[in-house]
């Protein structure tokens, strides 16, 4: 019975803690290599400035990038970036999941997406989550 209880605890721990995952997918024939200019749309509920972190990382990667509240940029860009950040509480708040989509700047069609999920024990800073998500997206 003791073994059974331990096994049950182990299963529950595995369910609660889970594993970190990082995935990306691209639309058929989507080519991200020709993209040079980006605009990141801030999620209205985001008060942590994740859009600025994404824009900063894209600049670090060698792209031109701006960010703002408007759904479309003031001047045309090659790609528009959207994202969804999910947060959880475990001693402190941490970002458990980040999804980023790259849309065609002209048509709005989604060209590619990337997502990273990191449970509490494998948590990263928001900067780390942005870096990892853009990493899988542009790999």
């Amino acid at each position: 019975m003791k073994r059974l209880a331990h096994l049950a605890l182990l299963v529950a721990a595995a369910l609660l803690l889970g594993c970190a995952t990082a995935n990306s997918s691209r639309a058929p024939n989507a080519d991200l290599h020709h993209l040079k200019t980006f605009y990141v749309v801030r999620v209205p509920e985001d008060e942590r400035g994740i859009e600025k972190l994404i824009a900063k990382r894209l600049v670090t990667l060698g792209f031109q990038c701006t960010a703002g509240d408007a759904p479309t940029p003031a001047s045309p860009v090659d790609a528009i970036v959207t994202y969804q950040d999910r947060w959880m509480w475990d001693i402190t708040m941490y970002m458990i999941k980040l999804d980023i989509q790259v849309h065609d700047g002209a048509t709005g069609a989604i060209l590619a997406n990337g997502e990273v999920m990191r449970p509490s024990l494998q948590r990263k800073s928001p900067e780390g989550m942005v870096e990892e998500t853009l990493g899988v997206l542009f790999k």
Partner: protein
Amino acid sequence: MILSKRSAAAAAPIAVFCLLVGCATATKPEAMVADKVAVAHPSSSDVSVAVSGGKETSSAGASQVSNDAFAQALRDSIKNSGLFSAVNASGGRYKLTAFIGKMDQPMMGFSMTVKMEVSYTLADSRSNQSVWSKNIASEYTAKASAAFAGVERLRLATEGAAKANIQQAMTELAALQL
């Protein structure tokens, strides 16, 4: 066999957790099929459907929409409305491709809203030209009363968002003159 107080105390929260959370089940194609739409100009040509960007469901994760399930729902929706003369697995005069680019699901909650975005392209295989393309966003909320278990509500919300998305696509396709 009698549980010791200590074992029972350890097992109880796990049992409650499993009862409340349950195991995720994959979305069902039949739940994502769009309602019949009025077709202005039915095509006498056939069409094939290809889907990418979907995900398989793992029992410990959230309900997902797989490529196969979404493709099946698209094929059945096209057949229901008679948009094309036939729907094939591959080949055909027209090729409809759908890329599931966004699937925004809540981690938890009573009412669960799923937001979805799919990029569709219809190409003429003879000319190899795109005749229609559209990025369609949809969402669906499964209220707390829809199901007791959270994973069940999430599946219902995901299927609802997928159905709404396909419904919009069918409405757009029905207006085309091919």
